[in-house]
């Protein structure tokens, strides 16, 4: 069979995977939605969660699409489409593809034409990130048991423990924003963007709490994120 990284067979494989992901997401969405009703949750809030998450997801999803476009120049469209719809992130897929391509002496600057190199890259992309999916069914119950026993011994400390985990994650990403400051004013752009996002979130908080604009609460994160991204578009040419 003549190899084409944009061939119809590969699109068929991609469509099967995409349909599976949508089916799994719909299954858990419908199940959780029904459960919310059974346990008497405020269904208005549940619907707001769906709408605000949809709005919040658009910008990061477009950023993921950019990853698909980047990889497609070398791998064609179907494989990056599969990889970035399931498990993957561009931060992993690009090094996985480039390391294998380098090992095989294949150039990344043109569309791949060797089916063996292509299948090697597909294998590395798949196997190189397997623990993050295989370990979930193996470890999840044990991890939850550990958290449950901490909460059982001391409920307040159990809540603080989880909060501290969130804060550890947020701290790592906030710290990362400072990694470029030594490169001059350009390196400060991410910090200015971060501060602008924080400012927008603060303004939203004031509008919700002081001005009682309650509906804004669900949209504060998408507003601060999109506002800060727009701010990055404005300040980058001025600074850079």
């Amino acid at each position: 069979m003549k190899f084409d990284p944009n061939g119809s067979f590969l699109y068929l494989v991609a469509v099967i995977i995409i349909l599976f992901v949508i089916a799994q997401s719909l299954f858990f969405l419908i199940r959780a939605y029904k459960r919310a009703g059974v346990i008497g949750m405020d269904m208005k809030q549940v619907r707001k969660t769906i709408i605000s998450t949809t709005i919040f997801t658009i910008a990061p999803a477009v950023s993921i699409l950019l990853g698909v476009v980047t990889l497609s120049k070398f791998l064609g469209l179907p494989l990056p489409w599969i990889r970035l719809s399931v498990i993957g992130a561009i931060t992993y897929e690009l090094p996985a593809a480039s390391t294998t391509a380098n090992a095989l002496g294949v150039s990344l600057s043109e569309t791949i034409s060797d089916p063996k190199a292509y299948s090697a890259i597909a294998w590395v992309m798949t196997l190189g990130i397997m623990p993050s999916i295989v370990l979930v069914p193996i470890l999840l119950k044990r991890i939850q048991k550990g958290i449950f026993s901490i909460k059982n011994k001391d409920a307040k400390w159990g809540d603080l423990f989880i909060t501290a985990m969130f804060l550890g994650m947020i701290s790592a990403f906030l710290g990362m924003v400072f990694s470029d400051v030594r490169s001059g004013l350009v390196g400060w752009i991410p910090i200015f963007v971060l501060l602008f996002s924080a400012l927008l979130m603060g303004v939203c908080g004031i509008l919700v709490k002081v001005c009682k604009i309650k509906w804004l609460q669900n949209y504060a994160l998408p507003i601060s994120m999109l506002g800060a991204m727009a701010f990055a578009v404005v300040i980058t040419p001025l600074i850079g």
Partner: protein
Amino acid sequence: MNKKSYDNVTHFYGQIWIWTAIVLLLCVPISICIYYNAWPGMAPVLEGLLGVAPIFWTVGTIEVITYTPMLGTAGSYLGFVTGNLTNLKVPSALNAMENAKVKSQTEEGEVISTIAIATSSIVTTIIIAAGVLLLAQLAPILNSPTLKPAFENILPALFGGLAVVYVSKNWKISLTPLIFMVVLFLLVPSLAGSVGILVPVGSIISIIAARILYKKKLL
């Protein structure tokens, strides 16, 4: 159905979905090899794996331990299949639980987190699919130099807002990990590429700080 049996059933379905996903994922390279009769041999695969597996197997293991308590049962089974956890699924779940005023590790938290992660997964999949179908029309916009800074700064734009919500409420716990991380990245900027490994480091520092403050009755 009580909470425990709901959770058990979620585990049951979750296991079926995630193991099916694993089999399907393995079928992708297998089907490529069979269809094109292109078996690459062990050497190039192992060579490629050597370049990525040490770091990404570590990061993957760390992510499972760190993120599953935040995502909940169904959220974990789904989020780890659909990926993009740090830049999308975890912030989506945290933000949704905060807005709904529910806590993780409660049934309400489980429901809201699942709804947020499932919605986010569906929207992402649809946007990527639409983007693939309309690539010719969208490429000039996506590759526009004007928009480039927006997508380059998506993480600071996301975590700036998220930090205000969490840090302002828990500033005493946040102070130590935050100072540690800022100093660390200022001293070793190259660590930016390994931020995934530093997430549990931040969490451990944060948990120790919280424990000390809690024992001293400062929280």
